[in-house]
């Protein structure tokens, strides 16, 4: 596809976030071109689970942003002419001991104050809902509104809609450079298969966002944070919906006072149980966290630790087969919040750095950036998500960076 093209907006990155941006821009009648260096959803979006959660968000801004996004899913899912496998069955945080239970009750109160449908379950209740949980689990925190879907399907569905509204999707077309004029305004995007003249670029390139940012002289502090997953064979249901462990979150948000009773390896690899039943009759098990650059190969020690942690919570899976493992790279920022922001480069926007929440936050991201570009009022104040916050050195949020969190 050579030759010059023009667009009102060029979106770089064909993952779920880039697809959501393209969807909303196209719905707002903007002339959009999406550039993807490989195939749609072939990056992080093709190596994740399909989470749309509020249960693991910090009360306050984090939670509010996530809820806004979650609330967009049911309608959009029903409108897309593509089956994205959207279900909204809620989620469960499994509580391992009394110390966690105390913290969970507090957390529950905070989430309830945000208007979320949450409740604490005691041991009997949690085992009734999830009979395959280990019998020593003391209870659970249930979040009724959480949902899940097929992440690649979401990207395909959103883009199918955008294409109908005139968006052009150019895959297998990496961006080589971005040219600006003498005033510093964006002039054109140079892609392998040709140039695109535009004044606006949305950088939705996930773990590749820093490389795109460099093209316009911006420093985008996103680091790839690897997570590994195990895939089970299709089998009879083990859990009815998403189950995670509360202890990990408590350690993450708790300011260092709580430590789970786990092996040093579990801490080193950031292992936290995530159990996700899928529409394909199997389940995905995670999760882990390591900084290993752009490596998407699986380390057996990490896989082993994930399996161990999963068996601790669901002993029955001992005899169920794993058929595959894979690893994805979360686009991590130092304060665990994404960047949804205009920048000091006129016309250049960044929507990246969603870490493990890209699927869930994709829709609000697309909506907000569209509002930003079109000068419409924003659904939420995006100040905490501005790119410049990293230069300012302020710690806008309470989420502190720990080496293993």
């Amino acid at each position, binding site marked *: 596809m050579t030759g010059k093209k023009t667009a009102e907006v060029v979106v770089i990155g064909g993952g779920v976030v880039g697809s959501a941006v393209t969807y909303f821009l196209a719905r707002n009648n903007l002339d959009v071109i999406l550039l993807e260096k490989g195939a749609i959803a072939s990056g992080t979006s093709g190596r994740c689970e399909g989470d749309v959660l509020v249960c693991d968000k910090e009360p306050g801004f984090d939670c509010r942003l996530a809820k806004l996004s979650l609330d967009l899913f049911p309608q959009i899912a029903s409108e897309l002419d593509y089956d994205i496998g959207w279900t909204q*069955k809620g989620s469960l945080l499994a509580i391992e001991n009394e110390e966690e239970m105390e913290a969970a009750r507090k957390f529950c109160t905070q989430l309830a104050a945000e208007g979320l449908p949450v409740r604490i379950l005691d041991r009997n209740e949690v085992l009734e809902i999830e009979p395959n949980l280990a019998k020593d689990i003391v209870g659970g925190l249930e979040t009724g509104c959480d949902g899940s879907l097929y992440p690649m399907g979401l990207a395909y569905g959103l883009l199918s809609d955008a294409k109908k509204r005139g968006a052009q999707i150019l895959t297998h077309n990496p961006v080589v450079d971005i040219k600006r004029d003498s005033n510093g305004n964006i002039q054109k995007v140079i892609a392998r298969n040709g140039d695109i003249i535009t004044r606006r670029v949305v950088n939705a390139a996930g773990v590749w966002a820093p490389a795109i940012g460099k093209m316009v002289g911006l420093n985008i502090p996103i680091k790839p944070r690897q997570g590994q997953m195990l895939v089970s*064979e*299709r*089998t*009879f*249901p083990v859990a*009815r*919906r998403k189950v995670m462990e509360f202890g990990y979150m408590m350690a993450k948000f708790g300011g260092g006072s709580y430590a789970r009773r786990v092996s040093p390896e579990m801490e080193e690899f950031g292992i936290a149980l995530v159990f996700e*039943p899928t529409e394909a*009759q199997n389940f995905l098990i995670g999760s882990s966290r390591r900084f290993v650059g752009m490596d998407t190969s699986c380390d057996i020690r990490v896989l082993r630790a994930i399996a161990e942690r999963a068996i601790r919570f669901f002993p029955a899976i001992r*005899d*169920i*087969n794993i058929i595959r493992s894979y690893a994805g790279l979360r686009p991590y920022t130092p304060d665990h919040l994404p960047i949804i922001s205009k920048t000091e480069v006129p016309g250049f926007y960044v929507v990246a750095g969603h870490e493990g929440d890209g699927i869930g936050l994709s829709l609000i991201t697309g909506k907000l950036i569209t509002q930003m570009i079109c000068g419409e009022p924003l659904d939420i104040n995006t100040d905490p998500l501005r790119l410049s916050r990293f230069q300012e050195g302020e710690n806008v949020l309470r989420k502190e960076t720990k080496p293993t969190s």
Partner: protein
Amino acid sequence: MSSEKRRNRHPKAEQNHTFQIEVDGKKIVARAGQTIAEAILDNGLKVFRRTRNGAPRSFYCGMGVCYECRMIVNGAPNVRTCMTPATPGCKVVSQDESLMKVEW
């Protein structure tokens, strides 16, 4: 010559040690040395399981790669019957994989 007679002339038929196994509630005869799949096929049964869309499936590759022959054996699902020896009294059930979903 009937195929039954011909089959009994086969050297394999020397293994006269037989026992019973249960398949979908029905008692069938297995011979020593047979896998569960072999015992099932030897008894003229062919449908081993149903896919999530209800399609009937059976033993295919015979070497443990395709997993088409998977059945519930003594309560454990997804057992490759082509790789599992038949044992006296073992209970084998076809998997109806349309049931492998959560009921809400």
